[in-house]
């Protein structure tokens, strides 16, 4: 296990270098000059002042030098200041992150409570009316874009029935319900399907037949063995799907005015606040890579059948 952990950590190095390099390099494609953007609101500023600012920010340096400096900033948390607000990038990001994490955690919890029972129910009652109904529901959930779901929820639950507030207030716990539900609908649909498939596969195995032959009650079989395999699968899937969840929050946060990093990034793009966008991409990717690593390790720990370093992908 120890060797496996070490080898996984070593493998991360080129990936992290690649991520940071691409994130930094991406912003070089923009047609705007960073200093021009900074002084846009200030009105006419002479070229000398702009040139001095470029030297101050190190923008006259070669690309690789700038990259190295930026990389050091990522590592030390000193990523400079926002072009627009003038606040420290790292602080801005750290300020907004808890709101996004809260939103993600709530929607993941909702997804678990929705997908596991529904998936198991559909599998146990395979091809019955309930199964058809659940499968139709997951199909609809899978085909709805999250911004449409969000707007529909706002329209029906908030505007028509007045049940829930639309716009996020940090003190009001109810304001998390609508954005979280929006994220849950797509995720829940996907996982209900997966759980159903896993449980069906599991129920087909010989040990289940053996247990049935010995007269073990169906619900005992479900609770003791099938649920466990479904849980392992669910945890891995959830972590692996964090990628789409992390991205999905950008849209959902924008719709619900949820003050997290996703909305921050979209606002930063509209105001061309590039350092903030870079920080968003690089930190979200690092979080994602970290979660993937954790999922891998947990998977290896939970499932002894998986050989360390055996499979290539």
């Amino acid at each position: 296990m120890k060797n496996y952990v070490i080898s996984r950590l070593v493998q991360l190095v080129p990936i992290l270098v690649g991520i940071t390099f691409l994130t930094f390099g991406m912003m070089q494609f923009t047609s705007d000059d960073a200093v021009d953007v900074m002084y846009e609101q200030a009105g006419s500023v002479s070229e000398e002042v702009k040139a001095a600012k470029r030297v101050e920010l190190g923008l006259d340096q070669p690309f690789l030098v700038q990259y190295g400096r930026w990389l050091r900033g990522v590592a030390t948390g000193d990523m400079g200041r926002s072009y627009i607000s003038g606040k420290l990038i790292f602080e801005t990001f750290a300020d907004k992150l808890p709101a996004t994490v809260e939103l993600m955690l709530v929607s993941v919890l909702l997804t678990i409570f929705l997908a596991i029972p529904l998936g198991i129910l559909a599998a146990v009652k395979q091809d019955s009316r309930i199964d058809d109904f659940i499968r139709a529901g997951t199909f609809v959930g899978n085909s709805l874009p999250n911004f449409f779901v969000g707007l529909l929820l706002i329209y029906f639950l908030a505007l028509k029935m007045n049940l829930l507030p639309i716009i996020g207030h940090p003190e009001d716990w109810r304001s998390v319900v609508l954005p979280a539900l929006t994220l849950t609908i797509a995720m829940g649909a996907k996982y209900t399907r997966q759980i159903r498939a896993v449980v069906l596969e599991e129920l087909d195995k010989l040990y289940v037949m053996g247990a049935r032959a010995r007269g073990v009650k169906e619900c005992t079989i479900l609770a003791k063995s099938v649920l466990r395999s479904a849980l392992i699968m669910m945890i891995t899937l959830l972590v692996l799907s964090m990628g789409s969840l992390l991205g999905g929050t950008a849209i959902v946060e924008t719709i619900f005015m949820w003050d997290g990093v996703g909305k921050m990034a979209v606002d930063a793009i509209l105001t061309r606040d590039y350092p903030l966008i870079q920080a968003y991409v690089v930190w979200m990717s690092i979080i994602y890579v970290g979660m993937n690593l954790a999922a891998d390790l947990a998977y290896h720990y939970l499932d002894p059948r998986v050989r360390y370093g055996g499979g290539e992908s």
Partner: protein
Amino acid sequence: MDVSFGKRYRPLLPYLALAGMVLAVAVFAPFLTPYDPNAQNLEGALAAPNGTNLLGTDRYGRDLLSRVIMGSRTTLCASLLLLLSIATMGSFLGAVCGYRGGRLDSLLMRMSDVFLAFPQMVFAVAAAGALGGGLGNAAAALAIVGWPKYARIARGLALTIRSMPYMEAARMAGTGTVGMLWHHVLPNIAGPILVTAALDIGTIIMELAGLSFLGLGAQPPTAEWGAMMNNGRSMLQTAPWVILAPGTAIFLTVAVFNLLGDKLRDVMDPKQLRTCE
């Protein structure tokens, strides 16, 4: 192809017909729209669905039905082109790597590792922003993060068939690398790639529309579903039909392609795909 070919693919027909209908709407869009999709009529702005404007009008008085029909062209054209390019480029790269192996293979796979390490939409949102918006740039942003998946699948498949007896036989008969790839590798990996691509159409339509919804894709006055919904967002309370029309269009289109993808997977060998993902 064996005799049961027709029988095997028969269950697909209704879904192919549905998808064909959606595509036909997109292709013949200019002939189907009852009004000019960009014609403004401020006096008739925000009219609820009625006899003349079946789906109502938006805030500039533009007919929503016409815009939804024209939007199908924008959205589908961009999504399908995007999918076609990432699926062919990605699988081609993957197939070459899997078949040839060696340094090229490890280099390319390390590269795809990096791209796969990004949360897809996070990267796409930022890349679309950096490229400056516009439908083409949004599609490019999605392509950057989309190709490695196909490269991975194609590589895995190419690896498994590389040492099959018929491949050995073809090699011994003197077939060169290009011939091997073209005549033996690509036809054998095309099925699973096709299924993956079919299942991906819905996701890509939603992602592209999502970028447009954020203002990073199609720019006004282009009729595009995501952008139309973005326009209608602030009028949700007073004129819900402005978002309902394009939203339902996205939903129905994605649903049709998802159905087709599901059935295609059922018809083709499903096991093969699962082991390679």
